[in-house]
Each structure stands twice: as C-alpha cells, then as structure tokens.
C-alpha cells in the first residue's frame, strides 16, 4: 500500500495540536479570551522567560565597595563573567538591600571605563603610552630606590636620629582591603617612609 494515504500517528496528532496551540488565535478561542488581554498571546520566549542568574550557580559572597555601612552583596557569575550583583538577604546589616551606588556596582566593575593597561606619561608628555606591567613595576621600584637614596636622612637637621625619607609619600587606603593596607604600612615603614596617609584624614 502506498504510504501517502496513511493516517497520521497519535504522536503526529499531538504535534499538530501543539502547533495549533502555539497559534494565539486558537488559544484565545479555547480560553474565551477573544481580545487577547490574558496570557493567550504569550509567545514561546515569554513562556520560557527565566531570571538570568537561574543557572549561575552559587553566588560569590561579597561586600559593597562604596560607603562604610558594609552591605552584603551576592555576585552571580555565569560563564566566567559577572552576570548580576544582588543585595545579600542573609546580611544582618543590610538585609538584602542596596542604595543606588551599591546597586550600580555591577556597572562599576563591568563598565567600559575600566582601564586594562598600565599607562605612562613621560616628563613633558602630552599623551599616555602603554607599558608592560612587569616593566612598569621595575621602573617604579627603580624610582623608589633612587628617590630614597637621594632623600634619605639618618638624622634630622637638629641632630636627632630619624632614619627615614621625606622624599616619598603615599595617599590612599580607605577603599583598600585591610590586608593591602597592612602590607603597605609594613613595607613603607621598613623603607623609612613616614608620609603615609589616607582618606581617614580627610
């Protein structure tokens, strides 16, 4: 028997009904929503809509980088990229809430204002040049060393022992981590640098 006249299989029927079902007009008629003011006109995309962090896995637990309230943040990472930063409901400080700055921290860390290269502006220069990181680190180390040598004082003008340099100074720390401030203070003190300051003074 030729196959042409074969009756549709049950699976075929259900597929057909499914297809018809995806036609909004039928759904509207079936659910007596002729004006399509219910969800009968919802598309495949709409029906499949899910939160983008649904499959991001366990969030990274973080803390807002702006003010000193210390609101908890949950950072969702998807395919190696930050997909969302939410307030952390578990935090007894913030209870999941964020202010406009905290809510904008997603843009702070992912925005295109972030600079990716070490930049260098020579004396009298009118533009930035890009430097390799390691070379720039070497250059800074050389300058620290040279300036320290040039400005070292074993004694103050009045003869008191001071063992320091006033030729080097540092500013910043309130936006840094404790561990970073600790290493900074440790290194500077060992270098004899005393002019170390941060926003806590300002």
């Amino acid at each position, binding site marked *: 028997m030729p196959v042409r006249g074969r009756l549709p299989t049950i699976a075929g029927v259900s597929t057909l009904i499914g297809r018809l079902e995806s036609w909004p007009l039928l759904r509207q008629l079936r659910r007596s929503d002729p004006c399509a003011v219910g969800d009968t*006109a919802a598309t495949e*995309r709409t029906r499949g809509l899910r939160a983008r962090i649904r499959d991001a896995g366990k969030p990274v637990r973080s803390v807002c980088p702006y003010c000193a309230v210390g609101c908890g943040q949950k950072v969702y990472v998807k395919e190696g990229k930050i997909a969302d930063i939410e307030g952390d409901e578990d935090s007894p400080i913030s209870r999941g*809430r*964020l*202010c*406009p700055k905290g*809510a904008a921290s997603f843009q702070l860390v992912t925005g295109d204002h972030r600079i990716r290269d070490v930049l260098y502006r020579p004396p009298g220069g009118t533009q930035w040049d890009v430097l390799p990181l390691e070379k720039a680190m070497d250059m800074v180390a050389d300058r620290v060393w040279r300036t320290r040598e040039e400005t070292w004082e074993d004694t103050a003008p009045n003869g008191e022992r001071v063992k320091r340099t006033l030729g080097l100074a540092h500013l910043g720390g309130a936006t840094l981590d404790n561990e970073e401030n600790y290493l900074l203070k440790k290194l500077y003190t060992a270098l004899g640098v005393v002019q170390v300051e941060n926003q806590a003074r300002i």
Partner: protein
Amino acid sequence: MTAAKGFFTDTSLCIGCKACEVACKQWNQLPADGLHFTGNSYDNTGHLGASTWRHVAFVEQTLPEALGSIEPQGAGNGSSFGMRWLMESDVCKHCQRAGCLEACPTGAIVRTEFDSVYVQPDVCNGCGYCVVACPFGVIDRRDDDGRAWKCTLCYDRLSDGMTPACAKHCPTESIQFGDVEELRIRAERRLEELQARGVRGAQLYGQDARNQPGTGGLNAFFLLLDRPEVYNLPPDPVVPTAKGRESWTFAGLAAAGMFFTAMAGALLARNRSVR
C-alpha cells in the same frame, strides 16, 4: 493563574535615594537616558520612559501654616521646619484594566499569570497605540529600536520566585512587593496608622476599582501624603478603551439617528410629492 502580584509603594517611608531606579536599570540592563539637570529639586529623571521603569518624584512644599511652628506632627516628615519634602517612587501601575494592553493590536502586550502586564519585545512592532492609551504616561517607545517598553514587574525574576529588583533593594521598604490582596490589607492598615498619628493628607491611590474606577484598580498602588496631582499623578485616570463601548454606542445611535432622519426626510419628501 497564581495570585495577583504587585507593588504597594508607601511614600511615607521613601527617602528618595533612587536605589529603585538603579536596581531596575541594573537587573533589566537598561541604558541611561542622558544627562539632564532639571533643577526640579533632586529629580533629574523627570518621568518614566522606555528606559526608566522606576522614577522618584521629589516635591518641595512650603507649609505656610507650619512656619515657625516647632511641633513635630509625629509624622516623621520633617514638617517642623515649615516645609515638607515629598518623595515618591513611581512605576507602571499594572492596571486591572490596562489601556496599553487593550489598545495593543498585535498581541504584544499580555497579562501574565501574575496578573501583571507584560510587553513582549519579540512581538511588539512599535505601532505606539499603547503609548497614547496609558492614562499615566508610563509606556513609551525607545528611540533606537522603536519598540514599546515599560516595567515588567520583573517577570523573569518572578518566574524564578525572586522579588522584583526595585522592591528587593529598597532600603526602607517603601516599595513592598507581594500578593495584591495582602498588600491592600497592609495599605489600609498603614493608612489608619498614619491618620491616627495625625498625618494630614495621607491617602491611598488606586488600591481597588472603587478607589479608581477608570482603571479598575491598580496592581501597583500607592500611599501618598498629599493629593495625587502634587506627585504629577492623574486624580481620576480613565483607560481610554473604557469609553470604547460607550463611543461605539453613541456612534451607532448617531448613525441610526441620521438614518432615521434621512428616511423620514425621504418619506416626507415622497409623501409631499405624492400629494
């Protein structure tokens, strides 16, 4: 359908921080609307739009009768200074009777299982009928793609049991999200509480069809501290399509009237000619 979800925005708790605006933009990845210094208090957002789905309104009011008075009203609204600074986070109202939804000719706008009103960007063709059909001026077309956009009540988040971004991040619980039925009860109770504290002008806006027949009530309703006009909200919004049947009836009546007049005229003319 699950229980209707919505917002109760209690402006007596709003501190105008705009966390809702940014949290919304962050979650929905909306672009900025440009830098415009309006000089209108701290409101540089201006209005809701295609890329701004939460908007905090700021209203500075001098209270001449309170000038020099140092009695706090127990309202916690700073009125001892002789002025008030009202703040209100505005949003799509997800009307029971949604003008945008009824006006949409393409089926792009749907009512979801959460009873919210959602614009499907994959269907919207940018005709703009919805824009003029919204009595609140909420929905708008985006310049770049021409499609209409507005608050989705974080439809994607709701599908995964999450709270909408604005409500979740609001520091002072001025924006409360939940079952509309329950929010209504909460709002009534809050209103009584504020009235008992002597807060003059406290009122609910759009909490049900009785309060706002023109929209059938709002799924995102408000507690205001003054008349709606003060916040730039229409005092008696009416969905244009609500007048549809009436208009057709009148049009039909008018047409019938004209028909009968014409017929009568014709008959009279014939009678006359017969005579």
